[in-house]
């Protein structure tokens, strides 16, 4: 199968994730968008690793997974805390840091 398809799939997944991040207000959904973007990137890494016959891309994919796992732990904790104090998970309500 043509390897280009994998790259296109990764790009499509990334675009969906980015759109989700930009358009949705619910923090959980935004978070899912981020996960989607990360995994799209992983797919691209693996694809290019295959293409070049080099394991570096696969190793990087593992790194991204580890980071993503840690990020989920911290991110969900933040979201839960915000929800507890504000009774809302909308990212637009959390705007105290505006200049």
């Amino acid at each position, binding site marked *: 199968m043509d390897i280009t398809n994998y790259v296109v799939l990764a790009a499509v997944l990334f675009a969906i994730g980015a759109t989700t991040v*930009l358009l949705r207000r619910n923090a959980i959904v*935004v978070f899912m968008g981020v996960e989607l973007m990360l995994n799209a990137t992983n797919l691209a890494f693996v694809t290019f690793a295959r293409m070049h016959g080099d394991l570096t891309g696969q190793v990087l994919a593992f790194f991204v997974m580890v980071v993503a796992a840690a990020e989920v732990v911290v991110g969900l904790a933040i979201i839960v805390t915000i929800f507890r104090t504000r009774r809302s998970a909308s990212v637009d309500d959390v705007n105290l840091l*505006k200049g």
Partner: protein
Amino acid sequence: MNEVIGLAPWLVGFPLIGAAILLLGGRATDRWGHWLGVAASAASGAVAFILMFRMIGTPAEDRSVDHHLWTWLSAGNLDVDLGIRLDPLSMTFVMLVTFVGTLIHIYSVAYMDHDPDRRRFFAYLNLFVAAMLTLVLANSYLLLFVGWEGVGLASYLLIGFWDTGRPSARENAVAAKKAFVMNRIGDMGLIAAMALLFAHAGALDFGTALSEDSVGTMSQATATAIGLCLLLAACGKSAQFPLQAWLGDAMAGPTPVSALIHAATMVTAGVYLMVRSGAILEAAPTAQLVVVLVGAVTLLFGAIVGCAKDDIKKALAASTMSQIGYMMLAAGLGPAGYAFAIFHLLTHGFFKAGLFLGAGSVMHAMGDQTDMRRFGGLSRFLPITWITMGLGWLAILGIPPFSGFWSKDGIIEAAFIPVEGQPWRAWVFGTVAVLGAAITAFYMTRLFFMTFGGRRPRWTENQHPHEGSPLMWWPLVFLGVGSAALGLVLGIGGTFTTWLEPVTGHAEHHEPVLPVPVIITATLVVVVLGALLAFRMYAVNLVPEEAPRGSVLTRAARKDLYQDAANETLVMKPGYGLARVVQVGDRDVVDRGWSVLPQAVSWFGGVFRKAQTGYVRSYAAGMAGGVLVIAVVVWLVVGLGGAQ
């Protein structure tokens, strides 16, 4: 000497401990505090007597002893030591301060009897004595300065002692501040002199700084500068022209304070400084001439003011100024004058303390009245005060054999001694000194007869004058006897001059421009004439109860020859103007100038602040857009480049 020198710190220690106990003990010491104050001062006096007898028994050349106490600070090759110098000069002061000081303490017990703050008063008196003793016992300018400031502080506290609960409270507080601020100007002079001296000699102790090595290598300009700075200091402390304005107002304090300031402590410090620094002054003839000039001006200034004052204390204050002027004049005359400056200081200490305490006794009897136009005929009611003040009056007039004669006559003779190359000096200063003696005779006789003489009392209603308690008149008796006899005891055969010789150096004998008997006779004649004039005006003629308008000079003298107006016009108003200019300059030029920079930064920041909306999604959009832009740019550059 060396076996008893260990006692010397106790001279300062006793009154200092007394002050500490009274101030820290607070109200708990109210009942017996005044007696503690008296005891502290008396203990110091007892130590002084022991040291004095020991010193008399020591050969003259061994009488100067430096006693190292401890090292104040030690840094690199700089060592600042604290030590005591006991020599005939400091011993004279110690005797005067402790003896007269103790008498004033005893007097105050009765005088301040009804004052609720009597204990605090005694604490300050003890502090005053301790500070003055530190000043005269110090063996370096640095420790002298500690005492110098201590005296300034104590005088401030005492002049403003009645600063609450009286109609004149505000005035008293202002008088205290005035004294303090004017003294501060003099203190600047002392600091500057110390700095110059340190720069030259590298040390401030008398042993090094005033030694032949130090003074001998001093340039004329340095010596003159140091001499003038020291003179400024002395002017502040001793109320000499042009820093004399605080002395009259200082009468706001309780009368024993005036006695203490004028007789034993404070104003004598300037004369002490001049005599102690004699070596420097002798190296600077210009500075010496200025000292003599200041003395002569103040002498006449005080005497003229004294003639017009109706307030008994203010008249005495003007008299002090004038008498200290005599001492300054003598101190500027070199070794021939030093001994007489100190001798006059000593006799003046006795008769002026007696006169002030006598005035206090009169005020006590007359219900705090100070206007002499409301006294008169008091000799029958206050016989002890009358006699003791009479002795003081004869002493200050310089009538032989009373004490003032021996000291003041010495100064007048010294003033007539010609100075090489400046023949006018002997005549000018000699004449001023004689003239001063005549005016002194006038105003003191005026004061004496307005108070005690006159056939018709001019009292206000309901006054029943009577002598105070024995606690008040015993000190008067002691001081009266001192005023009468001290000069005779110390003056005959030059005993006192010989006593001070180890410090002041031996004065070569010079003949005055006029023969000595002529000077003495002339002085006595003008003194008697001045006294007779005053007697005619104020004892024979009736004294009006309201002050007559008087001549231009009288009106000027009543206003202290416009010293306050002069100070305000020449110093205060330009000072205010300068302060205003600086204030406006600081606010409108410096402040505003520098505010431009932070304002610019703030505005610049404001522009970028708008980007911070607080919406996470807009940041994300920004990042996505940014990545897109970078990608497009990379594609354009690399992609198009690759295509070629």
